[in-house]
């Protein structure tokens, strides 16, 4: 019941991030990517881990945020903070509209709708070449210095700290959210939706709110990607993106907030080291990993850690 109090171990990721800034100077771009993926995975955890909505369409919001920020930078202003807001807003609207559609259904139909909506957006981005650059991607995304002072440098230092700050603030908000009555009611919906109806909870509205918030944060992650890489390609809306973030979250452990941190970090680092060598077998091992996780380690890395560290009790 006291979970909302900040425990010392929760400061660990932030200390690690700051330490990495100084220790791994040449890996800062990877570090930024990791933090963007952590944010992406956090957004998914809200709907998948906490609310229990099985979706393969989170990339829709990531992609909308990415493109919105990119188009904003190209046509309106290169100011990054407002770009983040634009990305979040566009993604939130997408989340609201698609959520209103998708959340009327369940199971396979819901899953299929999330896939179809993402494919729809991908097709739209592909076709609207004049706005999105189509298959070639959006070029010429130039980002101004943050707050007029911090220029994006070649070593990725500014980008790293920028991503770190955004991730930190997002985490603060999401952490508060999941410990608040709202977050706990999402868990209730996941655990027994019949009971939630029977205690007077407006389930559909609650889920739609969660879906929209989740979309907004996915959109922020996408916008960060655009701003730090100065490019948007079609892959931000791909099935692979959606699948990847689900894998990252499950790898770390769903419904625990920190699963997103661990899963994204482990996945991205492993991918950086292993996928270069043999991308085809990277897919094979990821597939095998998924099968093994489902069969033996459903709680992901954090679940395994629990089993090893907590005293044995009837689970």
């Amino acid at each position: 019941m006291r979970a909302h109090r900040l425990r010392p171990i929760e400061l660990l990721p932030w200390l690690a991030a700051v330490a990495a800034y100084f220790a791994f100077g040449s890996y800062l771009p990877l570090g930024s990517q990791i933090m963007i993926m952590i944010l992406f995975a956090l957004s998914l955890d809200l709907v998948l881990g906490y609310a229990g909505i099985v979706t393969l369409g989170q990339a829709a919001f990531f992609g909308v945020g990415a493109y919105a920020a990119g188009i904003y930078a190209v046509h309106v202003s290169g100011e990054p903070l407002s770009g983040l807001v634009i990305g979040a807003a566009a993604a939130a609207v997408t989340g609201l509209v698609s959520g209103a559609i998708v959340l009327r259904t369940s199971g396979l139909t819901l899953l299929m709708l999330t896939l179809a909506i993402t494919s729809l957006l991908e097709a739209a981005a592909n076709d609207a070449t004049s706005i999105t650059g189509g298959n070639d991607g959006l070029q010429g995304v130039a980002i101004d210095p943050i707050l007029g002072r911090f220029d994006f440098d070649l070593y990725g230092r500014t980008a790293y700290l920028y991503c770190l700050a955004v991730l930190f603030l997002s985490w603060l908000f999401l952490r508060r959210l999941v410990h608040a009555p709202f977050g706990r009611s999402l868990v209730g919906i996941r655990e027994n939706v019949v009971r939630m109806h029977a205690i007077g909870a407006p389930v559909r509205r609650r889920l739609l709110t969660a879906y929209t918030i989740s979309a907004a944060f996915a959109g922020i992650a996408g916008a960060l990607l655009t701003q730090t890489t100065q490019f948007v390609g079609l892959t931000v809306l791909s099935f692979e993106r959606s699948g990847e973030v689900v894998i990252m979250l499950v790898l770390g452990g769903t419904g625990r907030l920190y699963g997103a941190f661990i899963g994204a970090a482990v996945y991205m680092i492993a991918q950086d080291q292993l996928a270069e060598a043999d991308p085809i077998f990277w897919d094979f091992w990821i597939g095998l990993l998924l099968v093994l996780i489902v069969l033996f380690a459903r709680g992901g890395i954090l679940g395994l850690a629990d089993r090893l560290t907590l005293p044995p009790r009837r689970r």
Partner: protein
Amino acid sequence: MTAVLETVRLCKRFGGVAVANDINFRLEAGARHALIGPNGAGKTTFVNLLSGRLAPSAGRILLGNADITRLPQAQRVKRGLGRTFQINTLFKGLPVLENVCLAAAEHAGFGARMLRAAGAQRDTMEHAFGLLDRLGIADVAALPVKELPYGKQRLVEIAIALALQPSVLLLDEPAAGVPSAESSVILDVIGQLPESVAVLIIEHDMELVFRFARRITVLVQGGVLVEGAPAEIAADPRVREVYLGERQHD
């Protein structure tokens, strides 16, 4: 006397089968009303219609003066209609206290709060804990529900309903599945329910019914056979036939 809960010619058909047939029912304020009948009479269906899990084919449902026939479940709960389920419908993986807190939070109207209002949450927890204490399960408040024996889980089911501070409480076979050693606790709890709450209880256990009810409705094949005070019902030959007939099949 306005009834706190009333149905007017309530019907429910599944295909060609009428599981609820023109039911006229009144629940008075402060009632201790039992609904009995043989298996398959449609008792749980009736409760599902009252609580909003099922939409009626015809007829009306009134809560106080308001027509709630078209109102979804959650809204009926907000207006003071609480229920328990025949089969435990709990958050099995969550602690007992959390089960009750979720209900209390919804009732207090801050189920959607995103910025943790620490003061209000503490109140909710204390209120929930007090409820558990009254039901005698405060000692297991931190345990996940699934680790409790069935009888205690049944009490959690009642605790959740009480946390909603209902004006009308529908209890669907509260003692069902509970070993007789543990059922006395449940009987006591029901006996101590506040007078301000109108209670409708579905039961098979005749001992419980006659101990607790001030009014009994007998439901047979979706329709009301007879309604009256316990003594009348016990003496009614039609009722005895319905139950005698059933016992012969056992």
